[in-house]
């Protein structure tokens, strides 16, 4: 066992460091440190920047335009990205549908979709959840009925993030009624310009528009847009479990710079002849959070080591998601707390400007509530660990 990087890894790290230093726009920094995503335009720009350098799909194999990096290289990439406050690449195309397409898709689908995911020309949104199917996804009721060369889709998707900017949606629909609810579900790729799609914005508690309701009314999609076999859509989701490692790693490695952001805020605030960062109450809370961040970082290393060795990570990805979301919530809460009365300035009404890291810190604290709900709620993650790993 050792933590040392080989000379090649070190050279790779330096190359990344140099690239990020030149490519990352400093104006994204505060938002990123508050756990917020840059705007879709900024994310698309960032994706294009990486693609130009050949690093648009860090987790994909070379044959599909990916980097073919080893888990160690990927870890180094994510660590350096975090260190530079680079935007986190939007994952729904890159980590969720892309890998399903290159694993189960037809050659035509691979050619049509994969390069444009890497270049950032296409934006994919995920149409899984419905009003009646959240944690219990298999309860989904959106239906696709075959009509000649087309599927006709009717139903409603809920919480479809970025549907309002997406060019495509990958959608779970029911194509037949079977004994087991998980059967008869198909995965269909939908062009968002298809007639019959209506999008209603759903604002979240940070007063921002990230997500939507999507209504599908007689939406006709060519049969060639079916991914894999009809009725086998549920199973393709399983390939995602592996990808969660990558998604988890890219977000969890940000915690340390998020803690740093509070530290800088606290150091800017004069208090009792010193700064707020010097008070024992704030200093110990920051120390606690830094310890959490270090621990989580090491959990990511273990996941990467599993991946390198090609072994099953068991419950580790779920554990990581749980601890990351809970820690992010604590971090952003402390940031808000540190700001004191400045945290009340969410919107300026008289043209005088708002304090430097507001309202982003509070927006971050509010939006962080979402992280323990989406992508499998904390309760569901605990159920998974209890059932699948502990045999309870």
């Amino acid at each position, binding site marked *: 066992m050792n933590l040392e990087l080989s000379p090649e890894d070190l050279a790779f790290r330096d190359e990344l460091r140099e690239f990020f230093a030149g490519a990352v726009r400093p104006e994204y920094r505060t938002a990123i440190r508050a756990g917020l995503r840059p705007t879709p335009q900024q994310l698309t720009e960032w994706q294009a920047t990486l693609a130009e350098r050949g690093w648009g799909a860090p987790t994909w194999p070379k044959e599909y335009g990916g980097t073919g990096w080893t888990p160690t290289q990927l870890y180094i990439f994510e660590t350096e990205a975090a260190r530079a406050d680079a935007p986190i690449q939007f994952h729904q195309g890159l980590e969720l549908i892309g890998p399903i397409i290159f694993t189960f898709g037809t050659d035509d689908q691979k050619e049509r979709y994969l390069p444009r995911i890497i270049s950032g020309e296409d934006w994919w949104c995920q149409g899984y959840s419905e009003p009646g199917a959240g944690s219990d996804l298999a309860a989904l009721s959106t239906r696709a009925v075959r009509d000649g060369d087309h599927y006709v889709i009717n139903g409603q998707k*809920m919480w479809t993030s970025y549907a309002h900017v997406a060019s495509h949606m990958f959608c779970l629909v029911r194509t037949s009624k079977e004994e087991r609810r998980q059967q008869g579900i198909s995965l269909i790729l939908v062009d968002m310009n298809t007639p019959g799609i209506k999008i209603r914005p*759903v*604002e979240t508690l940070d007063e921002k528009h990230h997500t939507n309701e999507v209504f599908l009314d007689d939406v006709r999609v060519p049969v060639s847009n079916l991914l894999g076999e009809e009725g086998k859509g549920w199973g393709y989701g399983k390939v995602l479990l592996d990808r969660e490692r990558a998604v988890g790693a890219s977000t969890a490695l940000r915690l340390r710079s998020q803690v740093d952001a509070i530290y800088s805020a606290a150091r800017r605030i004069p208090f009792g002849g010193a700064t707020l960062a010097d008070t024992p109450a704030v200093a110990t809370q920051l120390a606690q959070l830094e310890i959490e961040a270090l621990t989580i970082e090491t959990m990511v290393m273990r996941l990467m080591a599993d991946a390198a060795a090609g072994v099953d990570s068991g419950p580790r990805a779920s554990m990581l998601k749980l601890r990351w979301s809970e820690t992010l*919530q604590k971090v952003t809460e402390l940031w808000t707390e540190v700001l004191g009365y400045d945290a009340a300035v969410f919107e300026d009404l008289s043209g005088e400007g708002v304090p430097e890291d507001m309202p982003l810190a509070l927006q971050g604290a509010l939006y962080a509530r979402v992280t323990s709900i*989406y992508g499998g709620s904390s309760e569901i993650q605990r159920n998974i660990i209890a059932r699948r790993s502990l045999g309870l």
Partner: protein
Amino acid sequence: MNLDLTEDQSMLADSIERFGTERWPAADRWRLLREAGAKGVPELWGEIAELGWLMIPFAEEQGGLGGSFDDAMVLASGIGKHLLPVPVSTNAVLVAPLLKDCPAEFLEDVMTGKVRVALALGDGDSRFDHLNVATTAERTGAGYTLNGVKNFVADGGDADHFIVPARTSGSGAELEGISLFLLSRESDGLTVETYRSIDNHRHCRLRLSGAETGSARLLGEEGKGGLPLGMAVKGGVLAQCAEAVGAMDALCNLTLEYLKTRSQFGQPIGTFQSLQHRMVDMFIAYEEAYSITVRATLEAKEGVMDRGRMASAAKAKVGQTSLFVARQAIQLHGGIGTSDESVVSHYLRRLTMLDMALGNASHHLQRFAAIA
């Protein structure tokens, strides 16, 4: 010992319940706020004044209804329960005792909602220490000239007058030498910067550079404002605790209802044991918050002089428990709890700001320890 509401208090609670349910239904809050837009809903202030609620925190000598702490608690908790966007805790309870020597006509205007008064806090670098006043008042001619910055005038966004603590002598957090001034929003040398917080309350920042005031605008005696200021803040803290407790009550009940009606995996989610236990913890948190708030309120009413230690205990405990309840209420609602449309998220936003205003839980925890 009797912890029950009096008959008058029960009637007050009922009348707030009616007003909240009919005039400001929780389920419509999002739409009502949208329709109101940037100007907010200032008309509600006049409506509650008409119901006489603004007289509650004022003493009988001032033409009010007695100014008792437990009446204010009943009022504030009803407002918190319905998330009424009326800053009673700040524009009435907090300022009432400081206005006691004002002319009768002025007091009448305040109690009928014609004139709004807000207390200026957040002096320079003082953070949550409200007796740490750096703003200065210098005697000039017939009056005083004020200089300094007040970062947080609680619900001062629509106020016509500000109560401004300023130093006529002394320094730092010394009690002696703090004087209280009543300043009109239109005063020369005063810049008012208005802002909105995430709970849709409207506050402001004051920049005082040579703001002038006639001596008639001094509230109470010169240099003796520290003690009344501390007492007023205590009343405000208790009212805010009550508001939070009211909000927790509503949150616990609407979450309980949701657990019984939302189904996943073919059964109500309230049948999952992990959620049952969480729900129980939320009700326990509410019970705790209510208990400590009642105790601090009744001790204040009985005149126990403890330098605000019990009020700090309540503010710390209520801050912790109310945020726990609000965050869990969202968690148990799943995605819907995070939407702007759902009232659940509005409670979290209000409780986040209630925790902060007049000092957050960690500030009051430290204060509690320091007074021991």
